């Protein structure tokens, strides 16, 4: 059973988003890291980069594959988790904590609230395994 913290919002691309003060912090979910396998490299966006919701903003690589990261919301990148350069495995070991990917200053009010809540994401995951 993959972990789905109650206080986060989720996308169908298996990303999570959380209001953290003035910014929205973003990462990939437990389901995503489990299915990716060992993360060996993360291509982070640049601070200051503009993101559009649902568009690719980076990649996560495993030994065997490359997966796109899709922006959960629109906005500007305010911070990136540089620690992932040397320790990409944090995405596996602590996807909701130390494995966060970037922080975004949201440009569209209401986008975060429009994402799936924990119950909806859990139901979505259940439908995938059916």
């Amino acid at each position, binding site marked *: 059973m993959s972990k789905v913290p109650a206080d986060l919002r989720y996308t169908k691309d298996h990303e999570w988003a959380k209001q953290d003060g003035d910014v929205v912090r973003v990462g990939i979910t437990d389901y995503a890291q489990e299915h990716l396998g060992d993360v060996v490299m993360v291509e982070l966006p640049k601070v200051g980069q503009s993101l559009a919701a649902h568009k690719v903003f980076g990649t996560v690589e495993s030994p*065997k594959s490359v997966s796109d990261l899709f922006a959960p919301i629109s906005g500007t990148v305010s911070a990136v988790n540089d620690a992932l350069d040397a320790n990409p495995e944090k995405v596996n070991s602590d996807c909701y904590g130390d494995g966060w990917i970037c922080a975004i200053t949201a440009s569209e009010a209401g986008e975060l609230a429009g994402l799936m809540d924990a119950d909806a994401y859990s139901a979505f995951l259940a439908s995938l395994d059916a």
Partner: protein
Amino acid sequence: MTEPARRRTALYDTHVALGARMVEFAGYDMPVQYDGILAEHERVRQRVGLFDVSHMGEVRITGKDALGAVNRLITNDLGRVSDGRAQYTALCHEDGTIVDDLICYRISPEEIFICVNASNRLNDVAHMRERLSGEATLADESDAYSQVAVQGPHARELLQRVFGKALAATGAFRIRAATFDGAPCYFATTGYTGAAGAEIYLPNDRATALWAALMEAGRDLGVGAAGLGARDTLRLEMAYCLYGNDIDRTTTPLEAGLAWVTRLDKPEFVGKAALVAQEAAGVPRRLVGLEVFERGIPRHGYPVKHAGSEVGHVTSGTLSPSTGRAIGLAYVPTALAAIGTELGVDCRGKDKPARVVATPFYSPPA
């Protein structure tokens, strides 16, 4: 539309019990990973790993002229090894392209046992049957055999505990008759990881018992399962070809760095004329080892660039767990194949610098 049911090896339940992630491969449900590709890769490099490779095919050629018949099918020369030896070779079409890469075990001049890739088994059998000449018979014995590979620095110690000192001391690239649990099996000192060890061919109904015996006997040696994912990173560090990625029906052994198993001095074999012609005309491209820099990881299909133009493509690539280098195999024009040649790899729209490097990418400790 229902797809044909996937086949299972005799060890399927064992993998599921170990928590393996199963994927379809060559029509079989196979374990791609258990505790993770990096952990399993390290297990094989540092301790000892067990692989279920029962999906591979086994073909036996028997008869007065078995050796000659096989020699007329393969690129390498089994006449150059003695009985009880293994030999890696390509199997070519008349046009010189590769139908499969295989290991031939020369049991005797009247008996050759061949291990073929799972994905090519039916093709290989049809190809060989159509071209078999002389007093020789081909039998596809794939369904009769399971296969367990034991690989790593502690493999020899583990094999000694299960098979005894004599067998465990067998030199590299040999095949020996053995028994396990009263059943005849083969103890073959071949492998696909660059690590020491053996591949055991045995009847399906003994596979779970062998796996259990190895796991039990090897506990203090750190034995554990390793899946197809780790198998791929291990072989790629050794620059071993993977059929379907690096070699296929568009590549010749001369292009693929397999000239060393292509004996053009043999009197005849399928594909010889085409390969002799290619050699005379000049082999136009080569499979080389690449290292990619600036955090680019080469992947199958990525274009290789030189002076702004696309000159080739990557066939296999990964971040090497044992060395931390981004490594890959790629076809490039022969003129750009020398070690040290500076190239580029287009990694999803970003040009990353790369260089032709020596292979293997990793040297297992002696």
